[in-house]
């Protein structure tokens, strides 16, 4: 049971990260490999603000999230806008290039030493023999709070509805009212901010090191694919499920296998149950007439 709780914490973070990733995948139509580097950057910026400048963790988190959200908008304008017309593959490889550059920037700015957030666990609570730290509760709360806020934003504001229209490929909706650039910038802001938030949360729970991005990109991809890249609920469920599976599997097999579990699930889903993903795609490829 204890591991299920760990899994829920991991899964909430994963859901936040994956939502940001899936949003770009749905609207800009490419897999943004640099997304996980935004998580790493978030973890580092947060730790520097807290550890080096002695900032309060919540203030530091807020500054990181907003700052990196803005950075995401700038990066998308510099890197992705100019090659947008060249299609998904060029965008994907551009995002790999950007990921490498961000990784290099992280190395250069923060060095290869692992860093730690000061202890902000805030004591352990026990419910029926299961322990959960205050910070873990706060993380779960913040994760679902932001997901709910995103949900409300997407459903009940004009801008949010425009984003959903773009995501569902409804070209008619594009022309109505909201400028395309505003929609695109908002998407990048939200996506990057969610990535950065997940990064800070990961950092609070563990060590902050330069490899966070590469370690997490596949787990995010796995959650995104498992969730079907489409619905918010799907992504949340996939994130939680993967998180729980990774942490519960630790009971039966060595913890070293933790990432392998995620990739194994990913491969299994892709290969054993490709219908949802595949049928539409294959049709398009197969019958040209």
């Amino acid at each position, binding site marked *: 049971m204890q591991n299920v709780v760990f899994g829920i914490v991991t899964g909430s973070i994963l859901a936040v990260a994956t939502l940001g990733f899936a949003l770009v995948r749905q609207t800009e139509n490419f897999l943004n490999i640099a997304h996980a580097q935004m998580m790493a950057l978030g973890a580092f910026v947060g730790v520097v603000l807290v550890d080096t400048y002695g900032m309060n963790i919540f203030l530091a988190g807020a500054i990181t999230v907003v700052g990196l959200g803005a950075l995401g908008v700038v990066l998308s304008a510099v890197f992705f806008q100019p090659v947008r017309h060249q299609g998904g593959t060029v965008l994907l490889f551009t995002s790999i290039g950007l990921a490498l550059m961000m990784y290099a920037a992280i190395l250069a700015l923060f060095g290869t030493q692992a860093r730690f957030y000061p202890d902000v666990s805030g004591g352990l609570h026990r419910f029926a023999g299961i322990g959960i730290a205050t910070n873990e509760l706060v993380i779960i709360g913040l994760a679902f709070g932001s997901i709910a806020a995103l949900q409300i934003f997407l459903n009940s504001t004009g801008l949010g509805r425009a984003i959903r229209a773009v995501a569902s490929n409804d070209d008619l909706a594009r022309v109505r009212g909201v400028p395309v650039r505003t929609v695109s910038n908002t998407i990048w802001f939200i996506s990057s901010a969610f990535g950065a938030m997940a990064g800070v949360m990961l950092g609070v729970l563990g060590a902050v090191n330069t490899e966070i991005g590469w370690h997490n990109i596949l787990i995010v991809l796995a959650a995104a694919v498992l969730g079907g890249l489409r619905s918010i609920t799907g992504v949340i469920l996939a994130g939680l499920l993967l998180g729980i599976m990774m942490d519960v599997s630790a009971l039966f097999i060595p913890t070293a296998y933790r990432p392998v579990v995620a990739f194994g699930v990913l491969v299994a889903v892709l290969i054993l149950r490709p219908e949802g993903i595949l049928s539409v795609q294959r049709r398009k490829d*197969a*019958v*040209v*007439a």
Partner: protein
Amino acid sequence: MELVLDTVRKTFGGVVAVDDVSAVMPQDRVTALIGPNGAGKTTLFNAITGFDPPDRGSISFGDQRIDGLPPWRVAELGLIRTFQTPVGFTTLTVRESLLAAATPHFAETPLGALGLSRKARDHERASGDRAEEISAELGMADLLDVRTDELSAGDRKLLEFARSLMAEPKMLLLDEPAAAVAPANIGRLSQLVRRLCDERGLGSLIIDHNLSFLMQIADEVHVLDRGALLASGPPAEIAANPDVMRVYLGEDGAKDSEA
């Protein structure tokens, strides 16, 4: 030998695209398949060639059941189709496209590529000659070294046809081969289709909206309307059929203009 359809049905959601069609198409004759837009002609091609298997009914070619076979297997049996939208092998030249169509399986393995056998070389040379012959007959000899994506739509349509000839067909299934093709080349096309049938017994099943082109070369015409077979018979009979006239004139006046 013949291509036999027996109560073939194909639906997409609620739409019955092919509605219990039964027909016999001799392998050594020219058969036309006509009908207004959306009648289900292309869907029937997809069902025959394994791209989109029928929901029920059976399809056979000679004594072989072919419904449910994968497309490459249907092609191996000699049923070679062309596509309504002529995209082709975009980055290959016309010559490469034709040669690729003719390449036998034994030359298509990595090891075959490394120690190219004499047999494969001879085959390649013979295919090269045939590619030039066919392209000359279709008036596209000067396009042999042009990339497919640089051809005009009409030339790509001709390439579809030429390519299918390179693949050692027993019967051709041509989806609107004359659409967008220049009038002079339509003449060459119909002569070639007719001649292949008369001299070499290579028949075709042809979809087209250009009725004057079809009526000249077809031995038999099938009319499809909203998925169902409306009429079958020799061209003269079909041309005189009041039901067919109604379907064509009543619902769809501009069926000939595609270019």
